[in-house]
C-alpha cells in the first residue's frame, strides 16, 4: 500500500466513521420504531466499514484502528463536510443518505479495481453491505420525492458532494470533543 492509497482509504474511513456517528444519533428517536432499528444497523455498518478500513491502514502504519479513529486532531480527519453536519431533521438525513450512497458507490467501484488484493477484497465486502444501504435510501427517496422539504434538502446538500476535504466545519470539532471526551479522560493506551 502506498502513501496515496493510504490517504484514499482514510478518506473513506473518515467519511464512514463520521457519517456512522451522525446516523447513530437517530437511534432511539427515529420517526418510526421499525425504521429506528433499520437505520441503526446502517449506522453500525458504517462504523464497521470505518473500522475495517482503519485496520488496513493501521497495519501498514504500526498503529491501531481505535488510535486512527479517535486520537487524531480534528484538522487531520479526511472526511467531507457533507458527513460532518448534524442533521436532526429526517428529510435532511435521508437526503444526505441518498446522495452519499450514490457517490460512495462510484468510489467503491474504483476501489474494487485496486491492484492491492486486500484493498480490492475489502471494497467488495463493503460494497455488498452497501447494496442494502442503497436499497434503503432508494425506498425512502421513492416515498419522499414529492415532499417539498425533501427536494429542498437534496438541493441544499448536493453542492457539498464537491466540497474539498481540507476544510472542516466547526461541527466536526464539536463532534470530536464529544466523541473523544471519555477516551481523553485517561492516559493514552488505557483499556476501555
Amino acid at each position, binding site marked *: 500500500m502506498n502513501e496515496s492509497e493510504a490517504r484514499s482509504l482514510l478518506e473513506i474511513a473518515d467519511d464512514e466513521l463520521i457519517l456512522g*456517528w451522525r446516523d*447513530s*444519533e437517530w*437511534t*432511539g*428517536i*427515529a*420517526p*418510526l*420504531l*421499525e425504521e*429506528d*432499528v433499520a437505520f*441503526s*444497523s446502517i*449506522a*453500525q455498518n458504517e*462504523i*464497521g466499514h*470505518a*473500522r475495517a478500513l*482503519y485496520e488496513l491502514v493501521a497495519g501498514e502504519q504500526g498503529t491501531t*484502528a*481505535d488510535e486512527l*479513529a*479517535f486520537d487524531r486532531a480534528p484538522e487531520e480527519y479526511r472526511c467531507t463536510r457533507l458527513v460532518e453536519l448534524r442533521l436532526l*431533521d*429526517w428529510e435532511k438525513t435521508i437526503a444526505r443518505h441518498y446522495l452519499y450512497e450514490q457517490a460512495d458507490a462510484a468510489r467503491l467501484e474504483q476501489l474494487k479495481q485496486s491492484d492491492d488484493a486486500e484493498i480490492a477484497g475489502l471494497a467488495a465486502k463493503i460494497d455488498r453491505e452497501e447494496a442494502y444501504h442503497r436499497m434503503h435510501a432508494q425506498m425512502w427517496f421513492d*416515498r*419522499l420525492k414529492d*415532499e417539498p422539504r425533501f427536494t429542498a434538502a437534496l438541493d441544499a446538500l448536493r453542492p457539498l458532494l464537491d466540497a474539498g476535504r481540507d476544510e472542516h466545519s466547526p461541527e466536526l470539532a464539536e*463532534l470530536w470533543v*464529544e*466523541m*473523544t*471526551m*471519555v*477516551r481523553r*479522560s*485517561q*492516559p493514552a493506551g*488505557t*483499556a*476501555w
Partner: protein
Amino acid sequence: MTEREQSFLEYVQSGGQVEATDWMPDDYRAKLIKFIEMHGNSELMGVLPEREWILRAPTLQRKLALTAKVQDEVGHSQLIYRVVEDLGKPREQCLDDLISGKAKFHNVFHYPTKTWGDVGVIAWLVDAAAIISQKALLKCSYAPYARIMKKICWEESFHILHGRDVVLTLMNGTDAQRELVQEAVDRWWGPLMQFHGNPIAKDEDPMYVWRIKSQGNEEARQQFLDGYVPQIWELGLTVPDADLRKNDDGVWEYTEPDWDELRSVVTGHGPKSQDRLDLRRKARESSAWVRQVVLAEAA
C-alpha cells in the same frame, strides 16, 4: 365475578394460555394492557439515558456494542407495542399517554447517567434486575407476550455480557476507572433496590392472580441480590447499605428501600422524568409528518 370469568381465572391459574383472539374478562384485558404498556414505555424511555453515551464511546468496539444494545431496546418496544395494539390499544395512543404522563415507565429510567461508569453498571446490574422479571414473564398466561419475551430475553443476554465486559475492563484498569464504577454503583443502588416494587404479597397482586406475572416482587428482588451481590463484592466493590447481608436461612436482609421515592419517581417526579418526556414529545412532533407520509397511503 361471573361464572365465565371464574372459570377463566381457574384456567390461567392452572397454566392455561390465552391468545389474542380468545375471549377474556375485561379486567384481565385491562390489567394486561396496563402491564405490557408499561414495559413498552420502559424500553422506549430506557433508550434515552444510554444513547448519550453512544456518541462518547471510547473505542469502536464499545460504540458498536452500545449502539446494538440500544437498538435492541427500541426493537423490544416495537414488539411490545405490537402486542398491546393487538389487545386493542394502538401504538399512537400508548405514546400519547406516555408523553402526557398518564402511563408510566420503570423508575430506573428517570435517573441521570453521569459517567462511562454508568454505562457499565446499567448494562450489568440494571439489565440484570430487568432480566429476572423478564424471565418470569416467559410463563405469562397471555401467550403473545410470553412469546416475544423469548426473543427479548435472548437479546438481553448480549447486553449483560457487554455490561460485564465494560465493568471488568474498568476494574482491571486505572484507579480513576475503578472509581467510576464504584461511584456509579453508589448512585444506582437505591433505584435498583426499588426496581422490583414494594413487597406486596403475591396473592394480593392482581398481576400475579391473573398469572400475568408468575413471580412476586420480593422473590424477584431476592433473586437479584442472590445473583449479583456476590458478583459486586468479588470485584472489591461495596454496596451503600451497611445492613445488606444474607442470613442463615438464605434470605437477604437489607435497609428498607425508600418507597416514597419510588412512588414519586414513577409518577413523573424523578430527576430526569420531565426532560426525557420532553425529548420524546419533541422528537415525535417533529417527525409526525414522516409517519403521515409513510403510513397514510397504506391506511
